[in-house]
């Protein structure tokens, strides 16, 4: 319910752990809050829920920390929850505040939400690296497999290989196995125990990791480190993958390749934060612990643009606990700023800050423990697609480099990777790395494809009048 007066004190984009926490804090303090999300239900990727039509009696069975989600969901107070809203642009509004331009519902009608302050909690998506056969049907992202399961109760495949790098592979493998898939292997390109010494600094996380280990063992799922899926095969559809033993730089050893039969490969090399909206607004973007882009915030989660806040994975990938905490901190800061009082001071805020620092230090350690190593480029062949949208093979990227394209932008202009539907969200990381750069912030004028007519109408609409 938006009605004619759609002017909010706060618009929160993204209803994952960070957005839910922020919206709840602000709404319970009496601010008028709009919480927008592209999905049909709140929860984001981490707390993705199946539709009500399933009448699940144990909805928490697929989630770690489900009771926390229930508390966040039930703590939204009078916030207006605007689901099915895909935000494609945000801009400063003429009279102050921000205009949040969305496409609404299944038919993607244009609508605009106005708010004095804006919190960007848009989360992250899987980081993927190209390899031969990665565009075969049956190869999907680990997050995508998880979304099918959590959000639709569909198991991605019968015989599944889970591969890539990072601790997220473990919950993906255990939930697929628990839901009936035969998980034939989890292949971690980095060291299997890269995390172990760090986990001791967060006993809760060590227990969580042991839990996944135990469940993998129960389902007889082998978990191997120093192994990478270097090729996927099949005549039009995935039937098997090549798993190679790799060295510390992820270059395959000459010996030790094995062929693993599977109909599905769930692949993920960490996460890329979704920074389109903060980049559009001109918020300062810096680097996370592993050199990836992350929006810069002060300790109250304020970005460099007054009135714009960020929380969760946009400030650096750190997981759901940190996201929720950052959301709560951001919510309190928004309330304080709206009232014109200092954002810090009370003991609860100090405790939150201490805890945030501890969780952020652990997140940084994880990012450093599971980096992408350069050896992945040795998996590429001339005809390996780099850009799936524009179907640009590795050969054309190399030709562009040979012609003197020394940076990702020049490669993109010459060979066209990243110029298609997804605007480089999938291949941007790979192209940047092939150019020898750290992946930079996005430079996209719009965050979702939008019809030209809606773009032309943008200035004429300031409130949602078709609700």
């Amino acid at each position, binding site marked *: 319910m938006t009605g004619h007066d759609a002017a909010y004190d706060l618009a929160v984009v993204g209803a994952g752990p960070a957005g839910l926490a922020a919206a709840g804090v602000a709404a319970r303090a009496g601010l008028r809050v709009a919480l927008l999300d592209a999905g049909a239900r709140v929860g984001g990727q981490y707390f993705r829920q199946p539709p009500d039509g399933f*009448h699940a009696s144990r909805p928490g*069975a697929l989630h770690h920390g489900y009771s926390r989600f229930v508390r966040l969901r039930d703590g939204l107070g009078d916030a207006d929850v605007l689901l099915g809203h895909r935000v494609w642009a945000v801009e400063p509004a003429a009279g102050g505040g921000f205009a949040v331009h969305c496409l609404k519902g299944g038919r993607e009608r244009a609508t605009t939400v106005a708010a004095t302050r804006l919190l960007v909690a848009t989360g992250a998506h899987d980081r993927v690296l190209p390899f031969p056969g990665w565009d075969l049907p049956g190869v999907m992202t680990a997050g995508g497999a998880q979304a099918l399961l959590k959000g*639709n109760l*569909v198991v991605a495949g019968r015989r599944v290989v889970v591969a890539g790098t990072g601790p997220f592979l473990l919950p993906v493998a255990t939930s697929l196995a628990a*839901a009936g898939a035969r998980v034939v292997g989890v292949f971690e390109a980095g060291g299997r125990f890269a995390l172990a010494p760090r986990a001791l600094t967060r006993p809760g996380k060590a227990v969580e990791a042991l839990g996944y280990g135990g469940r993998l063992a129960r389902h007889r799922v082998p978990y191997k480190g120093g192994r990478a899926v270097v090729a996927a095969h099949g005549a039009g559809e995935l039937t098997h993958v090549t798993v190679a033993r790799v060295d510390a730089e992820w270059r395959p050893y000459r010996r030790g390749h094995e062929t693993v039969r599977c109909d599905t490969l769930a692949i993920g090399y960490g996460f890329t934060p979704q920074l389109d909206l903060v980049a559009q607004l001109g918020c300062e973007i810096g680097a996370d612990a592993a050199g990836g882009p992350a929006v810069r915030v002060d300790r109250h989660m304020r970005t460099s643009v007054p009135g714009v806040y960020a929380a969760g994975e946009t400030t650096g990938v750190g997981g759901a606990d940190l996201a929720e905490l950052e959301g709560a901190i951001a919510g309190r800061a928004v309330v304080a700023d709206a009232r014109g009082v200092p954002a810090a001071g009370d003991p609860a805020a100090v405790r939150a800050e201490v805890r945030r620092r501890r969780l952020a230090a652990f997140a940084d350690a994880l990012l450093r423990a599971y980096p992408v190593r350069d050896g992945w480029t040795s998996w590429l062949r001339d005809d390996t697609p780099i850009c799936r949208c524009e179907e640009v093979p590795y050969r054309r990227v190399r030709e562009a480099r040979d012609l003197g394209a020394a940076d990702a932008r020049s490669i993109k202009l010459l060979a066209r990777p990243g110029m298609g539907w997804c605007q480089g969200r999938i291949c941007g990381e790979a192209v940047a790395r092939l150019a020898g750069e750290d992946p930079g912030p996005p430079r996209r004028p719009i965050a979702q494809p939008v019809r030209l007519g809606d773009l032309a109408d943008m200035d004429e609409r300031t409130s949602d009048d078709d609700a």
Partner: protein
Amino acid sequence: MTEASPYRLVGARPEPEFEMLVDGRPVPVVPGQTVGAALHAAGIRIWRTTRFGERRRGLFCGLGVCFDCLVTVNGEENLRACLTEARPGDEVTTS
């Protein structure tokens, strides 16, 4: 091991399925499922062919990021199957 399934795992008692038509062929949907998920559940994992290399595609990112899974629903073109909730009687066409 007993037969594990996602329904059993979460104790689901799904409402009766309805049908959508995919290129004229009926595909069952549990209310609330996306077009892409219902296709996957029906064993259909490929529904798009690329412009140049005629590569076959279906769900890849599953989160609305990659646009590999585009479909036309009731004449509305270029919708992401992974985000679009299926409705009874939807006519889905693929390319």
